[in-house]
């Protein structure tokens, strides 16, 4: 896996903070039709919350 490129990225979101796996936690950002909020569980595991603005 040495030298693997950083991944294909997202052509629709190339400048988005979502392209970075370590984006700031708890700052919702829009990705397509969802908002993305990063949290941490008490034991340190990642929890990502996706919401649909304006509807469930």
């Amino acid at each position, binding site marked *: 896996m040495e030298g693997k490129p950083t*991944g*294909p990225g997202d052509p629709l979101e190339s400048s988005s903070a*979502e392209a970075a796996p370590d984006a700031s936690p708890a700052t919702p950002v829009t990705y397509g*039709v969802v908002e993305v909020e990063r949290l941490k*569980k*008490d034991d340190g*595991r990642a929890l990502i*919350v*996706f919401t649909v603005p304006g509807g*469930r």
Partner: protein
Amino acid sequence: MSELRFNELRGEQVAYAIHRQTRTFLPDRDHCPLCPTRPGGPVTEIPLPAFEIVVFDNRFPAFESPAGAAEVVVYSDDHDASFASLTASRAEALMWVWRHRYMELSARQDVEYVYIFENRGVEVGVTLHHPHGQIYGYPFLPPVPALELAADARLGGCAACAMLELERADGRRVLYENDAVTAYVPHAARWPYEAHLSMRHHRASLLECEPEELRLLSVGLQALVRGFDALFDRPMPYVMAVHQAPTGGPGAQQGHLHIEFYPPLREADKLKYPAGSEQGAGTFISDVLPEDAAAALREAIVRAS
């Protein structure tokens, strides 16, 4: 941490994740770990009183950093929902969730293949009934996507595109179409009611799909799974396997996004077991002709729409 051992006779990796032996097994609904944490109720995996879609690291991972990933995708905070029962907007949102996870996991140095899947029903080994799927980030290319790359090489181009063209030209096994996807029972289906849903245009992964294609993908998937549920008038157990391009190794970026369904039922109350021929020789023996399965499924999809 799991241990990988290479099985020489099969030419494949086997993962030993012995910590998974103690994972939660078919809890009653009052102790479901995928339900929200409601005031006065038990603390679950999701410390929120309500949610739409969440993804979290599996507590009992088959793969984990620095040698892969295992995530859980919970579709709804409604314990009794299913992929088929989600609203159209929620199903569309799920496509973006999948895309998001593919994007991020594909960037990891320790992930060569991002595999999104759902096991539905105890018949295929579900241990939690709450509607959810999973994502494995394999630190190697697993055998099935490797076979798809080999098919590309054998046919001198995208095998999934070639299969799609053949199925659409034949027409007898086509189940459903919209402007972005075609669903069909493959000419040589292994499971009695196996179905594939393929992007009509060549798209290596979710990342190459236009937003409207993602919406239509969700519409097509819901039409198909609702048809499955209508086929025998019962929730259809299945394995749903999202196949797309590997994210590392020589086959990186080569693939064609399609979703395969393997329902294990051959009748409403009869399972197709992968037994002697299937397990020991690798040859499936099917009781149902794909053309007959397609006719029944087509009618079920119409009935469920």
